[in-house]
């Protein structure tokens, strides 16, 4: 065990909260904002969403076409690498499964890895398996209202089982890839996979 901090008792979470908190996290009721640069603001008339296969085939939706796809509501806990967790957040969005199914009709074939690309230049990489099977969405509503720009609106990736930097804000494209390639934070010292339950915060964490 690490050395005891003299005089530190700590403020225990409730048992219910403790069971929902990954190691090193604390619960917040706020919704903190973290991003590396200015908040991009693109008009919805110029917004579109692309899924590109490793074979170069693409499927693309305008905002109206995107909203016409079947969507669903999900309630989930989220965990930020900066230590806060927020319980029971409510999102509405389109399952990545739905997008991949639609894209397959355009000749986009699955690949083992994916890079999410965003307005403002942000990227993050994920194994495709982590965004399939009902585990990831492109969310455009939060708590019953359109997603605010500082929280990633008009649409962000939502992959709640990984640290929240993987849930890329202002997402515009999912690019499927044969080989893994690190995204923005993954190139700057953060963990390549980012499982909060294994406390994979930084590169080198097991």
């Amino acid at each position, binding site marked *: 065990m690490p050395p005891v*901090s003299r005089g*530190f008792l700590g403020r225990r979470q409730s048992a219910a909260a403790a069971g929902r908190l990954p190691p090193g996290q604390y619960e917040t009721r706020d919704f903190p904002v973290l991003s590396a640069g*200015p908040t991009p603001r693109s008009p919805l008339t110029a917004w579109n969403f692309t899924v590109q296969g490793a074979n170069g085939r693409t499927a693309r939706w305008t905002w109206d076409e995107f909203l016409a796809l079947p969507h669903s509501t999900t309630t989930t806990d989220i965990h930020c690498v900066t230590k806060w967790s927020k319980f029971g957040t409510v999102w509405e969005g389109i399952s990545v499964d739905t997008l991949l199914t639609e894209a397959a009709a355009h000749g986009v074939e699955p690949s083992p890895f994916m890079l999410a690309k965003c307005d403002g230049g942000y990227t993050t990489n994920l194994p495709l398996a982590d965004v399939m099977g009902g585990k990831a969405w492109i969310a455009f509503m939060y708590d019953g209202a359109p997603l605010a720009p500082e929280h990633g609106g008009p649409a962000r990736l939502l992959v709640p089982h990984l640290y929240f930097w993987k849930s890329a804000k202002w997402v515009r494209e999912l690019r499927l890839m044969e080989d893994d390639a690190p995204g923005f*934070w993954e190139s700057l010292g953060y963990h390549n996979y980012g499982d909060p339950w294994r406390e994979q915060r930084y590169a080198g964490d097991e």
Partner: protein
Amino acid sequence: MSAVVTPPRISWRLATVIDVVPETPRTRTLVLDVPGWPGHSAGQHVDVRLTAPDGYQAERSYSIASPPEDARLALTIERLEEGEVSTYLADELHAGDKLELRGPIGGYFVWDVALGGPLFLVAGGSGIVPLMAMLRHRDAALAASDTASRRRLPTRILYSSRGWDEVIYRDALAHLAESDPALEVRHTLTRNQPPDWSGFRRRIDREMLEEVAWPASEHPRVFVCGPTPLVEAVAQALVELGHEPALIKTERFGPTGGSV
């Protein structure tokens, strides 16, 4: 197949508190001896971990206040009323105590003299801490330089605080500016101003930035750190003033409703 090379783990280290320096009524600086510290860049932070006798642990992140040139690591802690870790660091910890930490962390919100200038820094409240590391690094790196060299890295900082007593590093900032013709420090006090105050007395807005910031045509490197509403407003206004988003780096803390 993975193209990602895994570097060594950022390991936990046991630091010793050498000194505790009061800064403002709500903040103080911990000066730490960290055996084996691998060095850092100005703007990076560390994770601090506290352990209770029964093994319960709490972790938080704190920006590094000291420049890479210092042998000792300085963290400036703001006491948050509800803060589980900050109240311990701000009230309980004293010289001679041990403190577990690991770092440095963060490879984006960093500045080094080699990156050049002009440099424009905008701070809100304790958001000054990583920016102070940049100013101290700049000063240390240019210590032997003449005025001409300093002028090649001209720097301006705009710092928003609620009142004059809450300005962190107030004297140190004044001292840096006095001895450096290429450094300008401007304050805005948003709630309480001394009777003779002649500086800004409102939240940072576009007009203030237009007056204080380097023009976009000079392509300054911009670092903004503070509560989210300040960072959002400043970054947005700078983009509207023509600054390239890619040159504006931001770091935010606190709930979305925080204010300075």
